[in-house]
Protein backbone atom coordinates (compact mmCIF):
# COMPACT_ATOMS: atom_id res chain seq x y z
CA UNK A 1 0.00 0.00 0.00
CA UNK A 2 2.65 2.45 1.05
CA UNK A 3 4.67 1.56 -1.98
CA UNK A 4 1.75 2.21 -4.27
CA UNK A 5 1.10 5.63 -2.80
CA UNK A 6 4.75 6.40 -3.03
CA UNK A 7 4.82 5.54 -6.72
CA UNK A 8 1.66 7.52 -7.26
CA UNK A 9 3.09 10.50 -5.44
CA UNK A 10 6.26 10.25 -7.48
CA UNK A 11 4.25 10.39 -10.66
CA UNK A 12 2.21 13.31 -9.41
CA UNK A 13 5.43 15.09 -8.56
CA UNK A 14 6.81 14.18 -11.95
CA UNK A 15 3.72 15.56 -13.60
CA UNK A 16 3.92 18.74 -11.54
CA UNK A 17 7.58 19.05 -12.44
CA UNK A 18 7.01 18.47 -16.13
CA UNK A 19 4.30 21.09 -16.30
CA UNK A 20 6.73 23.51 -14.70
CA UNK A 21 9.15 22.82 -17.51
CA UNK A 22 7.87 25.61 -19.68
CA UNK A 23 10.19 28.06 -17.96
CA UNK A 24 13.67 28.47 -19.28
CA UNK A 25 16.25 26.46 -17.40
CA UNK A 26 19.90 27.33 -17.23
CA UNK A 27 21.38 24.84 -19.70
CA UNK A 28 24.36 24.26 -17.42
CA UNK A 29 22.15 23.07 -14.63
CA UNK A 30 21.63 19.30 -14.46
CA UNK A 31 18.17 18.23 -15.47
CA UNK A 32 16.46 14.99 -16.29
CA UNK A 33 15.02 11.86 -14.79
CA UNK A 34 16.62 9.08 -12.75
CA UNK A 35 14.94 5.90 -11.67
CA UNK A 36 16.00 3.74 -8.74
CA UNK A 37 14.37 0.42 -8.03
CA UNK A 38 14.90 -2.51 -5.71
CA UNK A 39 15.36 -3.30 -2.06
CA UNK A 40 12.37 -2.66 0.19
CA UNK A 41 14.79 -2.50 3.09
CA UNK A 42 16.27 0.79 1.98
CA UNK A 43 13.40 2.20 -0.04
CA UNK A 44 12.57 4.68 2.73
CA UNK A 45 16.17 5.81 3.04
CA UNK A 46 16.52 6.14 -0.73
CA UNK A 47 13.37 8.23 -0.80
CA UNK A 48 14.90 10.63 1.75
CA UNK A 49 18.13 10.78 -0.25
CA UNK A 50 16.15 11.43 -3.42
CA UNK A 51 14.22 14.25 -1.79
CA UNK A 52 17.41 15.94 -0.60
CA UNK A 53 18.92 15.42 -4.02
CA UNK A 54 15.93 17.01 -5.73
CA UNK A 55 16.22 20.00 -3.42
CA UNK A 56 19.84 20.38 -4.37
CA UNK A 57 19.14 19.89 -8.08
CA UNK A 58 15.56 21.06 -8.62
CA UNK A 59 15.53 20.14 -12.31
CA UNK A 60 16.34 16.49 -11.80
CA UNK A 61 13.55 14.13 -10.88
CA UNK A 62 14.36 10.93 -9.02
CA UNK A 63 11.73 8.18 -8.87
CA UNK A 64 12.21 5.67 -6.07
CA UNK A 65 10.48 2.29 -6.22
CA UNK A 66 10.76 -0.78 -3.98
CA UNK A 67 9.69 -4.32 -4.72
CA UNK A 68 12.69 -6.25 -3.43
CA UNK A 69 16.35 -6.58 -4.32
CA UNK A 70 15.58 -9.18 -6.96
CA UNK A 71 13.21 -6.75 -8.63
CA UNK A 72 15.91 -4.06 -8.73
CA UNK A 73 18.54 -6.39 -10.12
CA UNK A 74 16.15 -7.85 -12.68
CA UNK A 75 15.22 -4.31 -13.74
CA UNK A 76 18.87 -3.34 -14.11
CA UNK A 77 19.44 -6.37 -16.31
CA UNK A 78 16.27 -5.68 -18.27
CA UNK A 79 17.43 -2.04 -18.56
CA UNK A 80 14.30 -0.62 -16.98
CA UNK A 81 16.04 1.22 -14.15
CA UNK A 82 19.11 3.46 -13.89
CA UNK A 83 20.05 2.47 -10.37
CA UNK A 84 19.28 -0.84 -8.67
CA UNK A 85 19.28 -1.02 -4.88
CA UNK A 86 19.89 -4.36 -3.19
CA UNK A 87 20.25 -5.75 0.29
CA UNK A 88 22.32 -8.62 -1.08
CA UNK A 89 25.16 -9.03 -3.54
CA UNK A 90 24.38 -9.85 -7.13
CA UNK A 91 24.68 -13.58 -7.72
CA UNK A 92 27.31 -14.84 -10.16
CA UNK A 93 24.52 -16.17 -12.34
CA UNK A 94 22.84 -12.77 -12.44
CA UNK A 95 26.09 -11.05 -13.40
CA UNK A 96 26.59 -13.62 -16.14
CA UNK A 97 23.10 -12.98 -17.56
CA UNK A 98 23.66 -9.22 -17.26
CA UNK A 99 26.93 -9.37 -19.19
CA UNK A 100 25.23 -11.46 -21.85
CA UNK A 101 22.70 -8.68 -22.28
CA UNK A 102 25.35 -5.97 -22.43
CA UNK A 103 24.83 -4.69 -18.91
CA UNK A 104 27.97 -4.32 -16.79
CA UNK A 105 26.88 -4.03 -13.17
CA UNK A 106 29.02 -1.80 -10.98
CA UNK A 107 28.65 -2.22 -7.25
CA UNK A 108 28.69 0.40 -4.47
CA UNK A 109 28.16 -0.21 -0.75
CA UNK A 110 25.88 2.61 0.45
CA UNK A 111 25.28 1.64 4.06
CA UNK A 112 25.27 -1.19 6.58
CA UNK A 113 22.20 -2.73 8.11
CA UNK A 114 21.29 -5.11 10.87
CA UNK A 115 18.60 -7.67 10.17
CA UNK A 116 16.35 -7.50 13.19
CA UNK A 117 14.30 -10.45 14.42
CA UNK A 118 11.00 -9.29 15.84
CA UNK A 119 8.35 -10.89 18.04
CA UNK A 120 5.11 -9.73 19.58
CA UNK A 121 5.47 -7.33 22.50
CA UNK A 122 3.67 -9.78 24.78
CA UNK A 123 6.07 -12.58 23.99
CA UNK A 124 8.34 -13.16 27.02
CA UNK A 125 11.16 -14.55 24.86
CA UNK A 126 13.62 -11.75 24.23
CA UNK A 127 16.95 -13.40 23.48
CA UNK A 128 17.82 -16.08 20.96
CA UNK A 129 20.99 -17.54 19.54
CA UNK A 130 21.54 -17.99 15.81
CA UNK A 131 21.10 -21.70 16.48
CA UNK A 132 17.67 -21.07 18.02
CA UNK A 133 16.69 -18.95 15.05
CA UNK A 134 17.91 -21.68 12.71
CA UNK A 135 15.78 -24.25 14.53
CA UNK A 136 12.75 -21.97 14.53
CA UNK A 137 12.86 -21.08 10.87
CA UNK A 138 13.61 -24.59 9.67
CA UNK A 139 10.71 -25.93 11.73
CA UNK A 140 12.77 -27.97 14.22
CA UNK A 141 11.34 -25.95 17.09
CA UNK A 142 7.63 -25.31 16.73
CA UNK A 143 6.47 -24.15 20.15
CA UNK A 144 7.55 -21.14 22.20
CA UNK A 145 7.54 -23.41 25.26
CA UNK A 146 10.74 -25.02 23.98
CA UNK A 147 12.43 -21.63 24.24
CA UNK A 148 11.13 -20.73 27.64
CA UNK A 149 8.09 -18.88 26.40
CA UNK A 150 4.36 -19.52 26.54
CA UNK A 151 2.81 -22.76 25.33
CA UNK A 152 1.91 -21.47 21.89
CA UNK A 153 2.80 -22.57 18.37
CA UNK A 154 5.46 -20.50 16.61
CA UNK A 155 4.34 -18.81 13.42
CA UNK A 156 7.36 -18.05 11.27
CA UNK A 157 7.13 -15.12 8.86
CA UNK A 158 9.42 -14.50 5.96
CA UNK A 159 9.55 -12.15 3.00
CA UNK A 160 8.83 -13.40 -0.52
CA UNK A 161 11.71 -14.88 -2.50
CA UNK A 162 12.19 -11.59 -4.35
CA UNK A 163 13.53 -10.02 -1.16
CA UNK A 164 17.25 -9.62 -0.58
CA UNK A 165 16.62 -9.95 3.13
CA UNK A 166 15.03 -13.35 2.44
CA UNK A 167 18.21 -14.45 0.66
CA UNK A 168 20.42 -13.08 3.41
CA UNK A 169 18.37 -14.70 6.15
CA UNK A 170 18.28 -17.99 4.29
CA UNK A 171 22.06 -18.05 3.92
CA UNK A 172 22.97 -16.84 7.39
CA UNK A 173 20.27 -18.36 9.55
CA UNK A 174 18.47 -21.15 7.72
CA UNK A 175 21.72 -22.52 6.29
CA UNK A 176 23.90 -21.04 9.06
CA UNK A 177 26.31 -19.62 6.51
CA UNK A 178 27.36 -23.01 5.18
CA UNK A 179 27.90 -23.03 1.43
CA UNK A 180 26.18 -25.93 -0.25
CA UNK A 181 23.77 -26.45 2.62
CA UNK A 182 20.41 -27.72 1.46
CA UNK A 183 18.43 -26.50 4.46
CA UNK A 184 15.29 -24.62 3.54
CA UNK A 185 12.81 -22.42 5.32
CA UNK A 186 10.17 -24.63 6.92
CA UNK A 187 7.32 -25.02 4.48
CA UNK A 188 4.92 -23.70 7.07
CA UNK A 189 6.69 -20.34 6.87
CA UNK A 190 4.39 -17.59 5.67
CA UNK A 191 5.84 -15.61 2.78
CA UNK A 192 4.63 -12.04 3.05
CA UNK A 193 4.94 -9.44 0.36
CA UNK A 194 6.38 -6.55 2.36
CA UNK A 195 8.23 -5.70 5.55
CA UNK A 196 5.18 -3.72 6.60
CA UNK A 197 3.00 -6.83 6.34
CA UNK A 198 5.44 -8.60 8.67
CA UNK A 199 5.17 -5.75 11.18
CA UNK A 200 1.35 -5.93 11.04
CA UNK A 201 1.23 -9.68 11.62
CA UNK A 202 3.81 -9.66 14.43
CA UNK A 203 2.10 -6.71 16.12
CA UNK A 204 -1.21 -8.56 16.22
CA UNK A 205 -0.12 -12.20 16.63
CA UNK A 206 1.48 -13.32 19.88
CA UNK A 207 3.00 -16.43 18.35
CA UNK A 208 4.61 -14.77 15.34
CA UNK A 209 8.30 -14.23 14.66
CA UNK A 210 9.66 -12.40 11.64
CA UNK A 211 12.73 -10.62 10.38
CA UNK A 212 13.30 -7.29 8.65
CA UNK A 213 15.79 -4.49 8.11
CA UNK A 214 16.60 -2.42 11.19
CA UNK A 215 14.98 0.59 9.55
CA UNK A 216 11.53 -0.97 10.05
CA UNK A 217 11.83 -1.36 13.83
CA UNK A 218 9.17 0.42 15.86
CA UNK A 219 7.45 0.30 19.22
CA UNK A 220 4.72 -1.93 17.84
CA UNK A 221 6.99 -4.97 17.88
CA UNK A 222 9.88 -6.19 19.98
CA UNK A 223 13.34 -6.90 18.58
CA UNK A 224 15.03 -9.89 20.17
CA UNK A 225 18.67 -9.81 21.24
CA UNK A 226 20.70 -12.21 19.16
CA UNK A 227 23.88 -14.10 20.01
CA UNK A 228 26.22 -15.81 17.62
CA UNK A 229 25.89 -19.54 18.18
CA UNK A 230 28.58 -21.05 20.28
CA UNK A 231 29.64 -23.64 17.65
CA UNK A 232 33.20 -23.14 16.22
CA UNK A 233 35.38 -20.17 17.08
CA UNK A 234 35.42 -19.02 13.47
CA UNK A 235 31.67 -18.81 13.45
CA UNK A 236 30.13 -20.44 10.45
CA UNK A 237 29.63 -17.20 8.68
CA UNK A 238 31.57 -18.12 5.57
CA UNK A 239 29.29 -16.58 2.97
CA UNK A 240 31.42 -13.48 2.69
CA UNK A 241 28.46 -11.22 3.33
CA UNK A 242 29.62 -10.25 6.79
CA UNK A 243 32.88 -8.32 6.56
CA UNK A 244 35.95 -10.25 7.68
CA UNK A 245 36.42 -8.17 10.81
CA UNK A 246 33.02 -9.28 12.05
CA UNK A 247 33.98 -12.89 11.75
CA UNK A 248 37.21 -12.49 13.65
CA UNK A 249 35.46 -10.67 16.44
CA UNK A 250 32.74 -13.33 16.50
CA UNK A 251 34.68 -15.51 18.85
CA UNK A 252 34.96 -13.06 21.69
CA UNK A 253 31.29 -12.20 21.54
CA UNK A 254 30.10 -15.76 21.15
CA UNK A 255 27.93 -15.96 24.24
CA UNK A 256 26.71 -12.40 24.42
CA UNK A 257 23.29 -11.34 23.26
CA UNK A 258 23.07 -8.03 21.43
CA UNK A 259 20.10 -5.97 20.31
CA UNK A 260 20.08 -4.70 16.72
CA UNK A 261 21.29 -1.14 17.16
CA UNK A 262 23.43 1.10 15.02
CA UNK A 263 26.18 0.86 17.62
CA UNK A 264 26.20 -2.94 17.60
CA UNK A 265 26.26 -3.06 13.82
CA UNK A 266 29.17 -0.60 13.74
CA UNK A 267 31.04 -2.64 16.34
CA UNK A 268 30.07 -5.83 14.47
CA UNK A 269 28.80 -7.37 17.70
CA UNK A 270 25.30 -7.90 16.30
CA UNK A 271 25.54 -11.17 14.37
CA UNK A 272 23.11 -10.39 11.58
CA UNK A 273 24.55 -7.41 9.82
CA UNK A 274 25.22 -6.88 6.18
CA UNK A 275 26.13 -4.24 3.64
CA UNK A 276 23.50 -2.64 1.43
CA UNK A 277 24.34 -2.06 -2.20
CA UNK A 278 23.45 0.01 -5.20
CA UNK A 279 24.27 -1.13 -8.71
CA UNK A 280 24.60 0.86 -11.90
CA UNK A 281 25.15 -0.21 -15.48
CA UNK A 282 28.86 0.43 -16.01
CA UNK A 283 30.79 3.30 -14.45
CA UNK A 284 28.10 5.86 -13.56
CA UNK A 285 28.01 8.93 -15.75
CA UNK A 286 26.18 12.22 -15.90
CA UNK A 287 23.11 12.40 -13.70
CA UNK A 288 23.55 8.91 -12.33
CA UNK A 289 27.10 9.73 -11.25
CA UNK A 290 25.83 12.92 -9.65
CA UNK A 291 23.22 10.91 -7.76
CA UNK A 292 25.58 8.14 -6.62
CA UNK A 293 28.15 10.69 -5.43
CA UNK A 294 25.39 12.49 -3.56
CA UNK A 295 24.20 9.24 -1.97
CA UNK A 296 27.71 8.39 -0.79
CA UNK A 297 28.37 12.01 0.24
CA UNK A 298 27.67 13.52 3.67
CA UNK A 299 24.07 14.56 2.97
CA UNK A 300 23.10 11.19 1.51
CA UNK A 301 24.80 9.25 4.27
CA UNK A 302 23.05 11.38 6.90
CA UNK A 303 19.70 10.27 5.45
CA UNK A 304 20.70 6.63 5.89
CA UNK A 305 21.65 7.30 9.49
CA UNK A 306 18.36 9.08 10.18
CA UNK A 307 16.32 6.19 8.75
CA UNK A 308 18.06 3.68 11.01
CA UNK A 309 21.01 2.44 8.98
CA UNK A 310 24.73 2.64 9.50
CA UNK A 311 26.61 5.02 7.21
CA UNK A 312 29.56 3.61 5.29
CA UNK A 313 32.12 5.81 7.06
CA UNK A 314 31.20 4.58 10.53
CA UNK A 315 32.14 0.99 9.84
CA UNK A 316 35.34 1.74 7.99
CA UNK A 317 36.44 3.63 11.07
CA UNK A 318 35.50 0.64 13.19
CA UNK A 319 37.29 -1.68 10.81
CA UNK A 320 40.57 0.20 10.93
CA UNK A 321 40.44 0.29 14.74
Amino acid at each position, binding site marked *: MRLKTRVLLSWLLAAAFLTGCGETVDPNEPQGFIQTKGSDTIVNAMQEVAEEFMQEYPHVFVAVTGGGS*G*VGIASLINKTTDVATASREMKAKEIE*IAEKRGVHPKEFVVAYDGVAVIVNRNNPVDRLTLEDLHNIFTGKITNWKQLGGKDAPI*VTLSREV*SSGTHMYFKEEVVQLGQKGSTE*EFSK*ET*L*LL*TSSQAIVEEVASNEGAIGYLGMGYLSDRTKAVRVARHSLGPQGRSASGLVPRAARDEGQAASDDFFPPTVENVVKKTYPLSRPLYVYTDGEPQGLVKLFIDFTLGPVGQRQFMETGFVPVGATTVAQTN
Partner: protein
Amino acid sequence: MPRRISEYFIEWCIKLSGLAVVVFVFLIFLFLLRDSLSLFREYPLGRFLSGREWLPISEPPRFGVLPLLIGSIFVTFWAIVICVPLGVGAAMFIAEVAPKPLKHVLKSLVEILASIPSVVLGFLGIIWLGPFLRDTFHLSTGMTGLTGSLLLAFMALPTIISISEDALVGVPRMYREAAYGLGATRWQTLWRVILPSASSGIMAAVMLGIGRVVGETMVVLMVTGNAPVMPRSILLPLRTLTATIAGEMGETVGGSEHYFALFAVGLVLFAITFTINFVADLFLRRARK
Protein backbone atom coordinates in the same frame (compact mmCIF):
# COMPACT_ATOMS: atom_id res chain seq x y z
CA MET B 1 -22.65 6.26 -51.90
CA PRO B 2 -20.70 7.73 -48.97
CA ARG B 3 -23.16 5.99 -46.73
CA ARG B 4 -22.41 2.63 -48.29
CA ILE B 5 -18.71 3.24 -47.93
CA SER B 6 -19.00 4.15 -44.28
CA GLU B 7 -21.19 1.13 -43.65
CA TYR B 8 -18.69 -1.10 -45.37
CA PHE B 9 -15.92 0.47 -43.33
CA ILE B 10 -17.73 0.07 -40.04
CA GLU B 11 -18.65 -3.50 -40.85
CA TRP B 12 -15.01 -4.29 -41.38
CA CYS B 13 -14.00 -2.55 -38.17
CA ILE B 14 -16.42 -4.68 -36.21
CA LYS B 15 -15.28 -7.83 -37.96
CA LEU B 16 -11.67 -6.94 -37.22
CA SER B 17 -12.27 -6.31 -33.55
CA GLY B 18 -14.12 -9.60 -33.29
CA LEU B 19 -11.25 -11.37 -34.98
CA ALA B 20 -8.69 -9.52 -32.87
CA VAL B 21 -10.13 -11.01 -29.68
CA VAL B 22 -9.75 -14.51 -31.05
CA VAL B 23 -6.25 -13.76 -32.30
CA PHE B 24 -5.22 -12.29 -28.95
CA VAL B 25 -6.42 -15.29 -26.99
CA PHE B 26 -4.63 -17.55 -29.41
CA LEU B 27 -1.43 -15.49 -29.19
CA ILE B 28 -1.55 -15.47 -25.38
CA PHE B 29 -1.86 -19.21 -25.43
CA LEU B 30 1.05 -19.57 -27.88
CA PHE B 31 3.18 -17.22 -25.82
CA LEU B 32 2.50 -19.13 -22.61
CA LEU B 33 3.10 -22.42 -24.35
CA ARG B 34 6.39 -21.31 -25.90
CA ASP B 35 7.88 -20.07 -22.62
CA SER B 36 6.54 -23.04 -20.67
CA LEU B 37 8.12 -25.43 -23.17
CA SER B 38 11.46 -23.73 -22.51
CA LEU B 39 11.12 -24.89 -18.92
CA PHE B 40 10.18 -28.43 -19.81
CA ARG B 41 13.28 -28.73 -21.96
CA GLU B 42 15.36 -28.47 -18.76
CA TYR B 43 12.85 -29.55 -16.14
CA PRO B 44 10.74 -32.61 -16.92
CA LEU B 45 7.00 -32.05 -17.23
CA GLY B 46 6.26 -35.00 -14.94
CA ARG B 47 8.30 -33.53 -12.12
CA PHE B 48 6.63 -30.16 -12.61
CA LEU B 49 3.14 -31.60 -12.41
CA SER B 50 3.72 -34.11 -9.64
CA GLY B 51 6.39 -32.30 -7.60
CA ARG B 52 5.39 -31.56 -4.05
CA GLU B 53 7.96 -28.84 -3.44
CA TRP B 54 8.01 -25.30 -4.75
CA LEU B 55 11.51 -23.96 -3.99
CA PRO B 56 12.34 -21.67 -6.92
CA ILE B 57 15.52 -20.05 -5.62
CA SER B 58 17.17 -23.08 -4.07
CA GLU B 59 20.09 -24.95 -5.59
CA PRO B 60 18.93 -26.93 -7.49
CA PRO B 61 15.53 -25.26 -7.82
CA ARG B 62 12.41 -27.36 -7.43
CA PHE B 63 9.30 -26.39 -9.35
CA GLY B 64 6.60 -28.72 -8.07
CA VAL B 65 3.28 -27.16 -8.99
CA LEU B 66 1.16 -29.53 -6.92
CA PRO B 67 1.04 -27.55 -3.64
CA LEU B 68 0.08 -24.41 -5.56
CA LEU B 69 -2.53 -26.19 -7.64
CA ILE B 70 -4.12 -27.82 -4.62
CA GLY B 71 -3.90 -24.48 -2.79
CA SER B 72 -5.87 -22.85 -5.58
CA ILE B 73 -8.41 -25.68 -5.59
CA PHE B 74 -8.86 -25.50 -1.80
CA VAL B 75 -9.44 -21.76 -1.80
CA THR B 76 -11.77 -21.92 -4.79
CA PHE B 77 -13.79 -24.86 -3.46
CA TRP B 78 -14.50 -23.17 -0.14
CA ALA B 79 -15.21 -19.83 -1.74
CA ILE B 80 -17.81 -21.52 -3.95
CA VAL B 81 -19.30 -23.46 -1.04
CA ILE B 82 -19.75 -20.16 0.74
CA CYS B 83 -20.95 -17.96 -2.07
CA VAL B 84 -23.20 -20.19 -4.19
CA PRO B 85 -26.01 -20.65 -1.64
CA LEU B 86 -25.75 -16.99 -0.68
CA GLY B 87 -25.63 -15.78 -4.28
CA VAL B 88 -28.41 -17.98 -5.62
CA GLY B 89 -30.54 -17.19 -2.59
CA ALA B 90 -30.04 -13.49 -3.10
CA ALA B 91 -30.86 -13.85 -6.78
CA MET B 92 -34.06 -15.71 -5.96
CA PHE B 93 -35.05 -12.99 -3.53
CA ILE B 94 -34.29 -10.19 -5.97
CA ALA B 95 -35.95 -11.87 -8.94
CA GLU B 96 -39.05 -13.33 -7.34
CA VAL B 97 -39.73 -12.07 -3.86
CA ALA B 98 -38.57 -8.52 -3.36
CA PRO B 99 -41.01 -5.71 -4.09
CA LYS B 100 -40.08 -3.45 -7.02
CA PRO B 101 -38.48 -0.53 -5.13
CA LEU B 102 -36.38 -2.86 -2.95
CA LYS B 103 -35.38 -4.79 -6.05
CA HIS B 104 -33.87 -1.68 -7.63
CA VAL B 105 -31.98 -0.76 -4.48
CA LEU B 106 -30.62 -4.30 -4.12
CA LYS B 107 -29.55 -4.48 -7.75
CA SER B 108 -27.56 -1.30 -7.53
CA LEU B 109 -26.02 -2.40 -4.24
CA VAL B 110 -24.84 -5.59 -5.93
CA GLU B 111 -23.24 -3.48 -8.63
CA ILE B 112 -21.45 -1.40 -6.00
CA LEU B 113 -20.23 -4.61 -4.42
CA ALA B 114 -18.69 -5.55 -7.75
CA SER B 115 -16.80 -2.28 -7.93
CA ILE B 116 -14.85 -2.63 -4.67
CA PRO B 117 -11.19 -3.02 -5.66
CA SER B 118 -9.71 -6.33 -4.54
CA VAL B 119 -6.78 -4.63 -2.84
CA VAL B 120 -9.23 -2.90 -0.50
CA LEU B 121 -10.78 -6.24 0.41
CA GLY B 122 -7.30 -7.65 0.95
CA PHE B 123 -6.48 -4.83 3.30
CA LEU B 124 -9.67 -5.46 5.29
CA GLY B 125 -8.65 -9.11 5.35
CA ILE B 126 -5.26 -8.32 6.88
CA ILE B 127 -6.40 -5.89 9.53
CA TRP B 128 -9.84 -7.25 10.40
CA LEU B 129 -10.96 -10.62 8.99
CA GLY B 130 -7.66 -12.44 9.61
CA PRO B 131 -7.36 -11.51 13.30
CA PHE B 132 -11.10 -12.17 13.73
CA LEU B 133 -10.82 -15.70 12.31
CA ARG B 134 -7.67 -16.33 14.37
CA ASP B 135 -9.45 -15.47 17.59
CA THR B 136 -12.69 -17.25 16.66
CA PHE B 137 -11.14 -20.56 15.63
CA HIS B 138 -8.12 -20.27 18.00
CA LEU B 139 -5.66 -20.54 15.14
CA SER B 140 -1.98 -19.73 15.27
CA THR B 141 -2.38 -17.17 12.48
CA GLY B 142 -5.24 -15.44 10.71
CA MET B 143 -3.51 -15.75 7.35
CA THR B 144 -5.30 -18.84 6.17
CA GLY B 145 -7.01 -20.29 3.13
CA LEU B 146 -10.37 -19.57 4.71
CA THR B 147 -9.61 -15.85 4.99
CA GLY B 148 -8.96 -15.87 1.26
CA SER B 149 -12.03 -18.00 0.53
CA LEU B 150 -14.34 -15.66 2.43
CA LEU B 151 -13.05 -12.58 0.65
CA LEU B 152 -13.15 -14.32 -2.72
CA ALA B 153 -16.70 -15.47 -2.05
CA PHE B 154 -17.51 -11.84 -1.46
CA MET B 155 -15.94 -10.94 -4.80
CA ALA B 156 -17.72 -13.67 -6.74
CA LEU B 157 -21.13 -12.80 -5.28
CA PRO B 158 -22.00 -10.01 -7.74
CA THR B 159 -21.22 -12.23 -10.74
CA ILE B 160 -23.31 -15.08 -9.38
CA ILE B 161 -26.20 -12.89 -8.26
CA SER B 162 -26.62 -10.94 -11.47
CA ILE B 163 -26.29 -13.89 -13.86
CA SER B 164 -28.56 -16.13 -11.74
CA GLU B 165 -31.06 -13.33 -11.48
CA ASP B 166 -31.09 -12.96 -15.27
CA ALA B 167 -31.68 -16.70 -15.58
CA LEU B 168 -34.56 -16.64 -13.10
CA VAL B 169 -36.23 -13.65 -14.72
CA GLY B 170 -35.84 -15.36 -18.11
CA VAL B 171 -38.05 -18.30 -17.11
CA PRO B 172 -41.18 -18.05 -19.31
CA ARG B 173 -44.23 -16.54 -17.68
CA MET B 174 -46.41 -19.50 -18.58
CA TYR B 175 -44.45 -21.86 -16.30
CA ARG B 176 -45.32 -19.66 -13.40
CA GLU B 177 -48.95 -19.34 -14.41
CA ALA B 178 -49.27 -23.07 -14.92
CA ALA B 179 -47.84 -23.74 -11.47
CA TYR B 180 -50.15 -21.25 -9.81
CA GLY B 181 -53.04 -22.68 -11.83
CA LEU B 182 -52.32 -26.09 -10.33
CA GLY B 183 -52.60 -24.57 -6.90
CA ALA B 184 -48.88 -24.43 -6.06
CA THR B 185 -47.82 -21.94 -3.40
CA ARG B 186 -45.34 -19.20 -4.18
CA TRP B 187 -42.52 -21.13 -2.51
CA GLN B 188 -43.40 -24.37 -4.34
CA THR B 189 -43.44 -22.51 -7.65
CA LEU B 190 -40.10 -20.88 -6.98
CA TRP B 191 -38.36 -23.96 -5.61
CA ARG B 192 -39.85 -26.73 -7.78
CA VAL B 193 -40.58 -24.96 -11.07
CA ILE B 194 -38.61 -21.77 -11.61
CA LEU B 195 -35.32 -22.84 -10.07
CA PRO B 196 -35.07 -26.09 -12.05
CA SER B 197 -35.96 -24.33 -15.30
CA ALA B 198 -33.25 -21.75 -14.67
CA SER B 199 -30.70 -24.34 -13.58
CA SER B 200 -28.53 -24.12 -16.71
CA GLY B 201 -28.23 -20.37 -16.31
CA ILE B 202 -27.46 -20.76 -12.63
CA MET B 203 -24.80 -23.36 -13.39
CA ALA B 204 -23.26 -20.90 -15.85
CA ALA B 205 -23.31 -18.25 -13.12
CA VAL B 206 -21.55 -20.62 -10.75
CA MET B 207 -18.93 -21.53 -13.34
CA LEU B 208 -18.21 -17.90 -14.12
CA GLY B 209 -18.00 -17.26 -10.38
CA ILE B 210 -15.42 -20.06 -10.12
CA GLY B 211 -13.49 -18.51 -12.99
CA ARG B 212 -13.42 -15.22 -11.15
CA VAL B 213 -12.23 -16.86 -7.94
CA VAL B 214 -9.50 -19.00 -9.51
CA GLY B 215 -7.98 -16.05 -11.31
CA GLU B 216 -8.13 -13.53 -8.48
CA THR B 217 -4.66 -12.58 -7.29
CA MET B 218 -4.37 -9.58 -5.01
CA VAL B 219 -6.60 -10.83 -2.21
CA VAL B 220 -5.00 -14.25 -1.94
CA LEU B 221 -1.51 -12.76 -2.14
CA MET B 222 -2.33 -10.47 0.75
CA VAL B 223 -4.22 -12.74 3.12
CA THR B 224 -3.46 -16.44 2.61
CA GLY B 225 0.08 -16.36 4.01
CA ASN B 226 1.58 -17.87 0.84
CA ALA B 227 3.29 -20.78 2.57
CA PRO B 228 4.08 -23.34 -0.17
CA VAL B 229 2.86 -26.35 1.83
CA MET B 230 0.70 -29.19 0.58
CA PRO B 231 -2.58 -27.87 1.98
CA ARG B 232 -4.18 -30.09 4.59
CA SER B 233 -6.81 -27.79 6.01
CA ILE B 234 -8.52 -24.61 4.89
CA LEU B 235 -7.72 -23.22 8.33
CA LEU B 236 -3.97 -23.23 7.60
CA PRO B 237 -1.92 -20.93 5.37
CA LEU B 238 -1.51 -21.97 1.74
CA ARG B 239 -0.19 -20.63 -1.53
CA THR B 240 -2.13 -20.33 -4.77
CA LEU B 241 -1.04 -20.34 -8.43
CA THR B 242 -1.88 -16.68 -8.93
CA ALA B 243 -0.14 -15.49 -5.77
CA THR B 244 2.99 -17.36 -6.83
CA ILE B 245 3.13 -15.62 -10.19
CA ALA B 246 2.42 -12.21 -8.69
CA GLY B 247 4.78 -12.64 -5.77
CA GLU B 248 7.73 -13.90 -7.78
CA MET B 249 7.48 -12.40 -11.25
CA GLY B 250 9.16 -9.15 -10.29
CA GLU B 251 12.26 -10.96 -9.12
CA THR B 252 12.95 -13.21 -12.04
CA VAL B 253 15.36 -12.32 -14.79
CA GLY B 254 13.94 -12.73 -18.26
CA GLY B 255 15.09 -16.04 -19.72
CA SER B 256 15.93 -17.80 -16.45
CA GLU B 257 14.50 -21.15 -15.45
CA HIS B 258 12.45 -19.55 -12.70
CA TYR B 259 10.93 -17.14 -15.22
CA PHE B 260 9.86 -19.99 -17.49
CA ALA B 261 8.53 -21.90 -14.50
CA LEU B 262 6.20 -19.00 -13.71
CA PHE B 263 4.96 -19.11 -17.29
CA ALA B 264 4.30 -22.80 -16.86
CA VAL B 265 2.27 -21.96 -13.73
CA GLY B 266 0.44 -19.43 -15.89
CA LEU B 267 -0.27 -22.13 -18.45
CA VAL B 268 -1.78 -24.37 -15.77
CA LEU B 269 -3.94 -21.46 -14.65
CA PHE B 270 -4.94 -20.71 -18.22
CA ALA B 271 -5.92 -24.33 -18.77
CA ILE B 272 -8.11 -24.25 -15.67
CA THR B 273 -9.91 -21.00 -16.45
CA PHE B 274 -10.30 -21.99 -20.09
CA THR B 275 -11.98 -25.26 -19.11
CA ILE B 276 -14.23 -23.52 -16.63
CA ASN B 277 -15.29 -20.86 -19.09
CA PHE B 278 -15.84 -23.48 -21.74
CA VAL B 279 -18.12 -25.46 -19.43
CA ALA B 280 -19.93 -22.27 -18.41
CA ASP B 281 -20.46 -21.50 -22.07
CA LEU B 282 -21.96 -24.95 -22.66
CA PHE B 283 -24.42 -24.36 -19.85
CA LEU B 284 -25.26 -20.88 -21.07
CA ARG B 285 -25.94 -22.20 -24.54
CA ARG B 286 -28.17 -24.91 -23.15
CA ALA B 287 -29.97 -22.26 -21.09
CA ARG B 288 -30.75 -20.28 -24.23
CA LYS B 289 -32.35 -23.23 -25.99
